[in-house]
């Protein structure tokens, strides 16, 4: 039953996101051609760069809107009349939405990487596929070297980092579902109550992560994990610099964050399931 639900959910999301993702690739190809054709006209290249960034932003916004809208229309809207009369459990309905959203998030990320490769690999920039592979390899080596220098297991840190990104996406999705579910429990002002839960939980959540990191890894309370990500984004043009931002504070916060994400995901998943199973009130 879960696979059937995922199949139909994929069809519903795919009909919107496939054209959007295809458009991102198309803009990347146009951008690449513009780099080849307008070598001397830097203003045109800037326009195409902006166009690509804007398209990526639209794709992310579209992805969020489609996934949230699917959940709301299927669980709170008129399509709920169909979903909740299907002979399946509530957790299967939630899991199907969750899995499909993750699948389309991964496809979107792959689409973005492919677009970047299309744009980057051109004669004028001098970047070739071989050079790109070599840069990634040298960055990894430098990262291993840096982490060993501060007495950290590089493999463990890398796994924890990827897990952190994955768990963050998972937590973010279930947190949206939970906020919608909380909103439905109020006869009026559902959106306001849903948003209040969404933001207040995030605030408490971040506080727990910082307190946990302080107590376990002695990370200063003033330390912000976000600042490291901004540094990482700023230094994307020099890949080697990404490797140098790791420090024991960041690693400690990532580990505590992962544990809290897992606990939070479990709590919110059962919370959503409980609300829609025991307190369903489809209008």
């Amino acid at each position, binding site marked *: 039953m879960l696979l*059937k639900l995922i199949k139909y959910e994929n069809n519903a999301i795919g009909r919107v996101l496939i054209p959007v993702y295809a458009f991102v690739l198309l803009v990347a190809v146009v951008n690449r051609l513009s780099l080849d054709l307008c070598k001397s006209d830097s203003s045109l290249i800037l326009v195409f760069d902006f166009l690509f960034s804007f398209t990526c932003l639209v794709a992310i916004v579209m992805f969020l809107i489609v996934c949230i809208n699917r959940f709301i229309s299927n669980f709170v809207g008129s*399509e709920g009349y169909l979903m909740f*009369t*299907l*002979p*399946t459990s509530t957790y299967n309905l939630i899991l199907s939405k969750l899995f499909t959203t993750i699948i389309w998030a991964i496809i979107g990320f792959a689409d973005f990487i492919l677009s970047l490769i299309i744009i980057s690999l051109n004669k004028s920039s001098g970047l070739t596929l071989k050079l790109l592979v070599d840069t990634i390899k040298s960055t990894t080596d430098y990262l291993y070297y840096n982490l060993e220098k501060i007495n950290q297991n590089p493999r463990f840190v890398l796994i924890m980092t990827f897990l952190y990104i994955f768990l963050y996406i998972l937590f973010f999705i279930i947190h949206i579902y939970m906020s919608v579910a909380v909103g439905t429990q109020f006869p009026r002002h559902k959106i306001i109550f849903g948003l209040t839960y969404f933001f207040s939980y995030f605030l408490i959540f971040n506080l727990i992560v910082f307190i946990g990191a302080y107590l376990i890894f002695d990370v200063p309370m003033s330390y912000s994990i976000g600042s490291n990500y901004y540094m990482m984004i700023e230094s994307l043009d020099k890949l080697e610099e990404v490797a140098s931002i790791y420090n024991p504070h960041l690693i400690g916060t990532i580990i505590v964050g992962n544990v809290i994400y897992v606990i939070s995901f479990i709590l919110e998943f059962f919370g959503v399931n409980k609300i829609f199973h025991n307190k*369903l*009130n489809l209008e």
Partner: protein
Amino acid sequence: MEKVKNLSNDTDELSPIIECKNLTKLYGKKIALNDISFSIGRGKITGIMGVNGSGKTTLMKMIAGLLVPTSGSVKVCGKPIGIASKQIVSYLPEKTYLNEWSKVKDTISFFKDFYKDFNEAKAYDMLKRLNVNTNEKLLTMSKGTKEKLQLILVMSREAQVYLLDEPICGVDPATRDYIIRTIISNYSENSGVIISTHLISDIENILDDVLILENGSIKIFSSADEIRQKYNKSIDNIFREMFKCY
């Protein structure tokens, strides 16, 4: 009137298709259903009637599993509301619940995939008889055609309980006749049909039992013939007089 009444004397060995015990539903402070108990036997067509806000749709939604009772219980063929009950209940809501971007044939595939008792051949036959194009998208359909499609999907299941909330409200008189004939043809000794409607005169001739709700309580629950004999009027006329607006 007596709160608990079993009209299914002929099917005592089997569980009633619907059994409600002390069922109450509150929306905030407002009482939608007030401690009602009744059971409906197999092989019957039962009409649920009442003015707007009397609790008809709330009752239907609780049987379908779309609302959770504040207190009391509902059982379908002896099963509490859950996956097992949803396998045997075919519910037609008063709302359009299908994806607007779907084609008719997609909705058929969907029902075939999720309901073991769905009869695909019967669905296509009904679509043909009611002139519904299988390649048409719901987005371009009229409200009446969408209602026809939903009814076809629901009636193409070989379910034990058909819950039909206003099934003939938005369709033309010719289609109404066809729908009523379809409901009768789905009759079997082991299944039951429950219809909620305001168009009493159109369906009263096919009803075996009538349940009239008023302000969330049962006002009348009896066989259609008994009610007609007692008041010496049609059910439509009884209803009009009972809830006359001044």
